[in-house]
């Protein structure tokens, strides 16, 4: 099972979606979303205690996706586990058939729902990438030989709208150096800015087999666009998109957001800006098939 990696290596325009595990054990809605999307996309990310909010686990849900015939991109943050637990989970994930891992530092506990928890950060994203690479080579972090290594496709994230951008770019270069094989970006809305970022990024990854997928979060209202500009660091929704969202009635806003998302997908694909897209509908996964149709991807 290496559907996502195969898609990335095939040269096609790669599409992934995202599943946010529920808070609790009632998984019917999530299973419905998995079945709806698993065959329409090349892989489905599964978030790991997203926004530092305690939820059903990423490994269990990733395994469910794989056992239902889809491919999962297992998200792993460094917030909740030390290096022993991270490696233990990586071996366990591999044992369960997971083959893609997205290495993240993880949101700080202070933004989540267990604010008094001790954040760990024994490793951070760059070190986690290095660690997965070592496991792939048959060794653990301490240098001990494994009785059977892993075979993970190693992913990472980058924030093209980070302010300031230069330190973020240097960190991106370090992630490439550490062994990241694919990137999914933080949400991007300004396609001109993103093209400029990709010009730079492709320069960095030239000669290396590194794929970069644009992160697209579907706008569902004017309020959401304004909220993200104000409260989500590293996300910038330009005025023309806010005006476009405001040009329709509240009832039609979701449709407008879907149109914008599909338009961006088409543009990125036609202009060969990046290697694919990662679509985040954040709780509204049922709209993703329509977006893919509007973008002529299915």
């Amino acid at each position, binding site marked *: 099972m290496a559907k996502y990696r195969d898609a990335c290596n095939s040269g096609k325009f790669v599409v992934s979606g995202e599943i946010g595990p529920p808070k609790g054990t009632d998984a019917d809605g999530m299973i419905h979303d998995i079945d709806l999307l698993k065959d329409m996309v090349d892989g489905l990310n599964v978030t790991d205690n997203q926004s530092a909010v305690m939820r059903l686990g990423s490994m269990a849900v990733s395994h469910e996706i794989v056992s239902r015939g889809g491919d999962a991109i297992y998200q792993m943050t460094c*917030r909740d586990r030390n*290096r022993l637990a991270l490696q233990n989970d990586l071996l366990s994930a591999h044992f369960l058939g997971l083959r893609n891992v997205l290495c993240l*530092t993880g*949101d*700080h506990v*202070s*933004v989540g729902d267990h604010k008094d928890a001790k*954040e760990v*950060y*024994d*490793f*951070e*994203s*760059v*070190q986690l990438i*290095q660690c997965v690479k070592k496991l792939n080579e048959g060794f653990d972090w301490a240098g001990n030989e494994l009785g059977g290594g892993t075979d993970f496709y190693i992913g990472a*994230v980058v*924030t093209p709208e*980070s*302010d*300031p951008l*230069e*330190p*973020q770019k*240097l*960190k991106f*270069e*370090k992630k490439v*150096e*550490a062994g990241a094989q694919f990137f999914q970006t*933080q949400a991007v809305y300004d396609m001109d800015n993103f093209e400029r970022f990709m010009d730079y990024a492709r320069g960095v990854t030239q000669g290396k087999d590194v794929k970069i997928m644009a992160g697209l979060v579907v706008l569902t209202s004017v309020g959401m666009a304004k909220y993200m500009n104000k409260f989500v*660091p*590293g996300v910038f929704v330009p005025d023309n998109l806010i005006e476009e969202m405001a040009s329709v009635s509240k009832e039609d806003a979701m449709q407008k957001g879907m149109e914008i998302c599909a338009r961006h997908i088409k543009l990125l694909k036609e202009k060969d800006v990046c290697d694919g897209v990662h679509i985040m509908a954040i709780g509204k996964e049922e709209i993703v098939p329509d977006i893919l149709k509007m973008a002529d991807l299915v």
Partner: protein
Amino acid sequence: MIISRQKPFEELLESLAGDKNVYIVGCGECATMTQTGGEDEVADIKARLEEAGKSIVATDVAHSTCHELDMKRIFRQKKAEAESADAFLVLSCGAGTQSVRESTSKHVAPGTDTLFLGNIKRQMNFEEKCSLCGECVLDEFGSICPVTRCAKGLLNGPCGGTNQGKCEVDSEKDCAWVLIHNQLKSEDKLDKFMQIHGPKRWNAVARPGRLDAKKEKGAA
């Protein structure tokens, strides 16, 4: 400097609920500077405890409350007062409170919360810049500590939460990685930024820390 904050007075009263005679200990070093356990604060707490019906058998602002031998000496000199006390209230850091603990078997209550090792920005304004990790890496980072000053302790660059140079966790704090980047850039040393740093050796000092410096010096 160890930065502390006085506990709310009600909390002090609660922890001294079963004690009539109280011996108050302050500290001439950090707690004086932070105005949590200097002469003035000790006098203030004394007056308020007396008003609340307590009997204050003695007060002392030791030179350094964390000096265990000094504390033993002080309590020897004030043996009668120390023996008549039901409890010791310590307006110092947690180290000072435990220093008093070593000198008496009676109830010892902390009068402050100990916050961090802080730099003095200006009077009564403190900032944490060192977290006593046991293995100084400052030279790698333009002498701006990411272990302490990045909310996530990141060693390889900023997270996605950096926001106009501020930290996502607290918008009043600078993003340590923006500071480090700017410093290294100004020194023309961005190659240091590009170096991939492995994780910290968190056990560089086995906790609880212990050091026999005399023995180490002798062995050297």
